[in-house]
């Protein structure tokens, strides 16, 4: 079985031709112009991952939404599960950039971390 894909490691965007042993296993890669292409093809077929960036609701903080990211890439197939879980989170305490708002998110071994600091709302008593 063969599959074509576009390498995203650099702007060159090599057209890769991937020979598959089965749906989850790569036996050979062709068309890449550097070793990163082969690595990308194997990773993308055998265990594709993505870093999720999104925003969570806040209460009593200076902005209505807090931008967050996963601390490491998560399996691509779990992105929509992760979004469903993100929608249930409300952050109500001030945070620093890099601080976890959910630890071991979805049991994936990564944290959901704030990507900016956020203080209390100006009219909040905490101010």
């Amino acid at each position: 079985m063969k599959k074509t894909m576009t390498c995203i490691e650099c702007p060159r965007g090599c057209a890769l031709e991937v020979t598959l042993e089965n749906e989850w296993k790569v036996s050979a890669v062709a068309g890449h112009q550097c070793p990163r292409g082969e690595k990308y093809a194997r990773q993308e077929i055998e265990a594709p991952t993505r870093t999720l960036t999104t925003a969570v609701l806040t209460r009593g903080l200076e902005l209505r939404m807090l931008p967050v990211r996963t601390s490491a890439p998560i399996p691509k197939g779990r992105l929509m599960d992760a979004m469903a879980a993100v929608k249930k989170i409300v952050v109500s305490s001030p945070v620093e950039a890099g601080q976890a708002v959910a630890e071991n998110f979805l049991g994936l071994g990564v944290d959901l971390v704030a990507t900016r600091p956020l203080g209390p709302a100006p009219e909040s008593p905490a101010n």
Partner: protein
Amino acid sequence: MKKRDLVVVGGGPAGMAAARAARDAGVRDILLIERDSHLGGILNQCIHPGFGLHRFKAELTGPEYADRFVKMTAAAPEIEVSLRSFVVKLTPEKRVSYLRPGALEEVEARAVIMATGCRERTREMIPIPGTRPAGVYPAGLAQKMINMEGWIPGREAVIVGSGDIGLIMARRMALEGVKVKAVIEIQDKTRGLVRNVVQCLEDFGIPLYMRHKVARIYGRDRVEGVDVVRVDDNLAAVPGSEFSLACDTVLVSVGLIPENELLEAAGAAIDPRTNGPVSAELKGTSIPGVFACGNSFKVYDLVDWVSRDSELAGKAAAAYLAGGAR
């Protein structure tokens, strides 16, 4: 009237880099004016990764990139930041008037750096025929609605333009549960990164129609759908190639224009084609002692280069102040 050595207008990545570079080059009295309640500018709504690979050798999100400069600004006591402050006038004598909550301030600056960013091109500038219902947004506005305000602009969307902003917004809306029906691109290739085509469209099964354009927008009060048509190499519609897509939202991602109303009103020469200031150098304007940088000088692809070039503007302003001339 209050006097200042240097006034920087705009607290986004350009203004912050320029202010800090001027300070590092010896300027000791800097006022940085920002209209929003936070520094960071457009980076605050660009919550996706991809920033800082050149500058910091790390893949940061927009807010993370901004935060590094916010901290560098805060660490420099020579830079006074005035938030929620909106500049309404600049004169050729470098007087700057600005509104802040409860007051109209006027300062006389020895040098000024304009870092006022850019604005989005709109539907009216392409233009797209049809009705004028609610639900047609510039993509960056939709980005602010979703990422800053927590509003989802619609349920089914078509995106016009396949630059990186359009691609990023396709993914952002798909993640939020919006059905993104198509991205329409009039050229024969996308202007966006390959990476974004793969991770923003292919990951979510969003079709990209190249050499196509939106021929008409339907809907009385709210968008009900669009007609899409293939175009030939002269960008003329190909008869018989039309098809319709039902949607309640159209995002328009068709380019950015430098914002220079203040400079223009001050009498600076503005290139009518680019809307950027006319200047012999990357950082100047036609008014001595008034500098410009960032997206208000020219529209950049990467914030890393905005930071780099804005530092040149900061250094140039410092040299002007030290020597009276560049």
